């Protein structure tokens, strides 16, 4: 049986080197291109007819749109509408990355959300963007967020460092949650797949049991892929709410 973390290896498809920096087109970048192309095609082609009574494809696109619009409405409020394009793009990118990663695509099959460098870059953009929005809207009054209203002044010595640390750990928890979920899920699938192959090649009948379990776990992983894209987006909305309304 091969190493269960071998599947996360980044392989260069088109080796490129510019001024000593490795910018090869890898299987990770290929999957990102596929995800962006697929989501763009899906969203443009499905609403092309602009029917008042939507057909099947248009309904599907409208479900995605309504889902994120409703999420922004309930978590951020009406001020959140101007951030809709960013949040929607983020959701679709993470969702397609998670779901396409579960598909057995030959040659380039890869889950880019299972790499901390990808999820941390996404989380860092959210974190920096939210902080900039907070300072832009409230000025230095935004620092008030690190000290709850009405707390006695003497508690500032303890409260402020705790609040600052919890604020700074947001991008880490946001990115590690997504990356760890995807990595752990794919490792479990690989190990269970190994059980099926080793047991099934010796005796066919007992191999059915790990296969049944593997099928159940695959369903769970599809659920996790959708749920984690949702959680990533919801937490982005909650951080946006904090920056705009300050608690």
């Amino acid at each position, binding site marked *: 049986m091969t190493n269960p973390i071998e599947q996360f290896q980044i392989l260069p498809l088109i080796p490129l080197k510019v001024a000593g920096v490795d910018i090869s087109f890898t299987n990770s970048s290929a999957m990102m291109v596929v995800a962006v192309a697929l989501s763009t095609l899906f969203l443009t082609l499905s609403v092309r007819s602009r029917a008042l009574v939507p057909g099947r494809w248009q309904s599907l696109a409208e479900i995605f749109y309504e889902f994120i619009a409703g999420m922004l409405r309930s978590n951020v409020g009406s001020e959140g509408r101007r951030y809709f394009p960013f949040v929607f793009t983020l959701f679709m990118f993470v969702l397609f990355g998670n779901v396409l990663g579960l598909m057995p695509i030959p040659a380039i099959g890869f889950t880019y959300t299972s790499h901390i460098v990808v999820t941390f870059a996404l989380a860092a953009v959210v974190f920096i963007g939210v902080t900039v929005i907070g300072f832009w809207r409230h000025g230095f009054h935004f620092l008030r967020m690190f000290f709850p209203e009405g707390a006695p002044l003497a508690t500032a010595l303890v409260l402020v460092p705790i609040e600052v640390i919890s604020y700074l750990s947001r991008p880490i928890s946001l990115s590690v949650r997504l990356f760890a979920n995807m990595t752990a899920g794919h490792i479990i699938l690989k190990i269970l797949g190994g059980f099926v192959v080793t047991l099934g090649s010796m005796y066919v009948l007992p191999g059915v049991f790990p296969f049944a379990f593997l099928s159940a776990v695959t369903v769970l992983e599809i659920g996790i892929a959708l749920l*984690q894209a949702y959680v990533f987006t919801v937490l982005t909305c909650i951080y946006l709410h904090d920056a705009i309304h300050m608690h």
Partner: protein
Amino acid sequence: MDYESAKVIGAGLAAIGVIGSGVGVGSVWSSLIATVGRNPSAKANVELYAWIGFAVTEAIALFALVISLMILFK
């Protein structure tokens, strides 16, 4: 004790952290069941928070798992 066995034992010890998350996820779902049992009409409102609570708590287990894997495959 040689390096290899120490590594495997360390990875096993690091995975103990999963216990806390198991208790936490159980608590999330038990609260949801208790809430929906008392007030079935609140299901649509609280289910969303339950999923967020589940995902956030489950992430703690995965932090422990990541540390365990880092020990195992480094």
